[in-house]
């Protein structure tokens, strides 16, 4: 399922020769047909084409946002857990503070501050979920720090830097990968939510959330405009959740919780 969606998004320009942004007023709001399997939107653009191109945007935003959170959260969590002390205390209070905001609210506020557009959405969604990584990695670093193999490495005269990269970081890989997969689904959802509110990617760029927002206006006359982009979001998030659950069971049996 995931492969199918990624395939559709990746090969969009080859599969669908039409421009996803060019209005075609002679065929607005056509219901699904052989010619346009998902119908056309209020500007006459083929919805299948737009959903496929939208996948490129949504997946890209999701990937970049998760990369941003990991890039910020992993080093901070690593240092915080490994060194402990005052730095750790400071970081943890900051994380507590950020976690006092519901995730979507934080992303929304950041977008309000930064403004709309692809880059800002990535930064907002990414930063909003960085505390999750700080917590996760810190936990691992904390538990690994005093284990025998780390002590052995230290006794052999390894530098902190070497211990961090060679011994502590590898232990974080499995949980971070599992978390990132699940986080990808969340990031796509959050970004789509922002788009739906008109605070995400600017039209005419096709993005699933933004398309859904446009579709809401025509919900009563043209159900297909809102239905298909939403279905695409649902299926991708479902796919990432399934993948994440599977990876968790395979890589990290300790995390098998809910």
């Amino acid at each position, binding site marked *: 399922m995931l492969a199918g969606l990624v395939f559709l998004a990746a090969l969009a320009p080859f599969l669908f020769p039409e421009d996803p942004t060019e209005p075609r007023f002679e065929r607005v709001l056509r219901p699904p047909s052989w010619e346009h399997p998902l119908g056309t939107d209020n500007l006459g653009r083929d919805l299948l084409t737009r959903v496929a191109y939208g996948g490129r945007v949504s997946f890209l935003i999701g990937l970049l946002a998760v990369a941003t959170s990991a890039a910020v959260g992993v080093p901070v969590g690593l240092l915080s857990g490994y060194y402990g002390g005052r730095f750790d205390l400071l970081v943890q*209070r900051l994380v*507590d*503070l*950020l976690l*006092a*905001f*519901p*995730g*979507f*609210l934080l992303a*929304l*506020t*950041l*977008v*309000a*501050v930064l403004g709309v557009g692809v880059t800002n959405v990535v930064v907002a969604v990414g930063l909003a979920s960085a505390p999750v990584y700080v917590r996760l990695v810190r936990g691992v670093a904390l538990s690994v720090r005093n284990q025998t193999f780390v002590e052995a490495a230290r006794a052999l005269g390894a530098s902190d830097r070497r211990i961090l990269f060679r011994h502590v970081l590898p232990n974080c890989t499995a949980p971070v990968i599992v978390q990132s997969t699940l986080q990808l*689904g969340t990031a796509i*959802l959050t970004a*789509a*939510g922002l788009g*739906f*509110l*008109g*605070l995400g990617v600017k039209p005419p760029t096709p993005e699933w*959330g933004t398309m*859904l927002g446009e*579709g*809401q206006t025509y*919900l*009563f006359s043209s*159900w297909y405009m*809102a*239905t298909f982009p*939403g*279905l695409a*979001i*649902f299926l991708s*998030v*479902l796919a990432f*959740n*399934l993948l994440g*659950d599977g990876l968790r069971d395979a890589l990290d049996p300790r995390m098998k*919780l*809910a």
Partner: protein
Amino acid sequence: MSGYILRRLVLAVPTLVGVTVVVFALIRLIPGDPARLVLGLQASEEEVQRLRVQLGLDQPLPVQYARFLARLLQGDLGRSVVTGEPVLREIGARLPATVQLAVTSTVVATLAGVAAGVVSATRQYSWWDYAVMTVALFGISLPVFWLGLMLMLLFSVHLRWLPAGGYGTPAHLVLPTVTLAAFSVAIIARMTRSSLLEVLHQDYVRTAWAKGLNSRAVVLRHALKNALIPVVTVIGLQFGGLLGGAILTETVFAWPGMGRLLVGAIVARDYPVVQGTVLVFAALFTLVNLAVDVLYAYVDPRIHYG
């Protein structure tokens, strides 16, 4: 016990103060001059300068923050740049609708989620279990706004059973509640299932079976009571997600709550309103989690108040 509650309350104060710092800092990070943003490009430099002084923007940041906090403590959140109304009054007018939606959704999610979890756990690996877990997986993957639109399409447009949006009668409450609760139902069902499964394998449950109690008594009276402890925490955490989801749900169903106020304010660049609503949302979430912590200590006597 009351000492513990008091201590938790005192500990929540730094968090709340921290929240005000974060919100204050975020709003000040907005590029550009707020006074210029308010007045527009046509305004003269003098007018802008006058508004800057009036808003206290000519003072250093720590002074601005101290003033902001002092006013906040008096219940003054400033005035909306768009309507000129005090922000607190605007929020006060919208807060009940949001609280109503969040509370009914939490109640629905808790009842449905726990029931589904119990069904699933007591019939592990059965057809029922798989059905519940599949639906739960769908539940955590559904975009709330899309679910809302699809429910609207089905129940308002095709079946004409329920109104598509608005506020007032119980009928108006049904679709937004179901929409908003869906995600939490799924999370709570998953948590209840795994927690109950763990408890069902413990010795005291075996004892209860051995005493010849019927399954209803064993599961509901003995096992579920303890299994619900972690579920309580999840419900508290869910409340945050619920508030986030409420912003989207309110937009879908034209529900006159704080979420729509916030979104409208962001679009209109009405920063005093943005600042106020974000603050109230975060404070609400913090207080609910505080209440959950206290409840937790009440439910689980093993927790020491040390």
